[in-house]
């Protein structure tokens, strides 16, 4: 569904992405992991067209994303730190995005209802806590029933109840055949939903593996332990 070819991006002297090649398919739930500053967010932002790479192409359903922005209709994106216009109210932000998307698909309000946003529509974005901002981001990401979900640290900052609600929603989306790309540092959290793992380091794609293969190769029972095992064996 998404194909990335020879993607390279530099920020000044820093190489955030170094010749990354990836093939992401429908129905996969992919964990994008790696140490801080390894290029995860840059990769995500490149897919969304927020960061423009120096080299390489990204194809969405065989179409180069440079040519047409319509592919963004099929993506739900939840940023790591949601930045919203400070003076806008929650209700206004939701209305604005709805009108931009001129939602043809029936809007999905489960998160909106479960996060009890209807009681906070008049609150300004500036006054929200980090967790509430994340709830708004999550609601917007899932609202239009996208085929692709890109979630950058989705549960960071959410309280345990909200995190559970969100996880249930992600699992539901996975079962309905969405492509889900998730970054998280809490590996244990990803355990039961992820089918593939992409590991990045210093802008390089280290590996892209099936979870089953990864566990078999390392001989460990959980993703977390396999990754730690791999990192340690590399140092040795």
């Amino acid at each position, binding site marked *: 569904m998404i194909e990335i070819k020879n993607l390279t991006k530099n*920020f000044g002297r820093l190489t955030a992405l170094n010749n990354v090649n990836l093939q992401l398919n429908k129905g996969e739930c992919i964990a994008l992991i790696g140490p801080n500053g390894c290029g995860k967010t840059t990769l995500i*932002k490149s897919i*969304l*067209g*927020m*960061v*423009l790479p120096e080299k390489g192409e990204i194809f969405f359903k065989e179409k180069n994303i440079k040519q047409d*922005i*319509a*592919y*963004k*209709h099929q993506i739900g*994106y939840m*940023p790591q730190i949601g*930045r*919203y*216009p*400070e*003076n*806008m109210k929650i209700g*206004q*932000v939701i209305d*604005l*995005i709805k*009108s*931009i*998307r001129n939602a043809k698909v029936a809007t999905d309000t489960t998160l909106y209802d479960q996060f009890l946003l209807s009681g906070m529509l008049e609150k300004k974005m500036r006054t929200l806590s980090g967790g509430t901002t994340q709830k708004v981001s999550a609601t917007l990401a899932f609202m239009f029933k996208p085929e692709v979900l890109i979630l950058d640290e989705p549960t960071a900052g959410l309280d345990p109840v909200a995190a559970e609600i969100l996880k249930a929603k992600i699992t539901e989306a996975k079962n309905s055949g969405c492509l889900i790309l998730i970054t998280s540092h809490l590996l244990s959290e990803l355990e039961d939903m992820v089918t593939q793992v992409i590991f990045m380091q210093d802008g390089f794609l280290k590996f892209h593996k099936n979870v089953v293969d990864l566990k078999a190769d390392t001989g460990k029972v959980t993703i977390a332990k396999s990754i730690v095992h791999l990192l340690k064996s590399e140092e040795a």
Partner: protein
Amino acid sequence: MRILKYVVLDILKNKIVIVYAIILALFSWSAFSLEDNSTKGLLTVLNIILLTVPLVSVLFATIYVYNSNEFIELLVSHPVKRSVIWKALFLGMSVSMVVSFIIGAGIPLLIFADAGTALMMIVSGSLLSVIFVAVAFLSGILSRDKAKGIGVSIMLWLYFALLFDGLVLFIFFQFADYPIEKPVVLLSALSPIDLCRILILLRMNISAMMGHTGAIFKDIFGSQLGILLSFILLMLWVFVPFYISLIKFKKKDL
């Protein structure tokens, strides 16, 4: 064009544009009622417009560009073209500045001055607002640092409003022995504020106030052609900075 609506509403909520309109109104009403003849009042208003309109436009628009970062970021992750976002911001800002200029200075002008001159001043004041919004968008995109961007904007205003005429005069006196009228006129095209002054004074036919460039302008082109030419140049001053900023914005990493 729902984005445009949000931008305009957001700017109006800011209240600075409203204060700006009130201050312009106060200045123009008092200028007209204090001076005994309307030409003198008109000249006072002209000088106020030439000084304050660019300053407020360039400063407010630069700050607004930086404060819109979150808004831009939010929209870019959704199916909206970058050029649409940037144009909506520019249009929203320009419309707000022009409307508050017309409410503040336009109404007293229409009441006290003769219709032709008033119209000319409203048009050139509006153009001046839009030009400096465009300049602000350019300096806002050139640097990621807010303080730097605002600094550049203030320097540009200082240069166009105060330093430029002095510079032209200096060049003129330095090379007084040579036939340099035409190059000097070309120079005046490099400052939108100068162009506006020429435009209005050509219309009012007061060569004493025109400054060096204006007088030469009239000599060479005559009134009609001069007005047309300066008008075209002013339009270029809107399009060129904005177009460069648009290209830069399309290539910006968010």
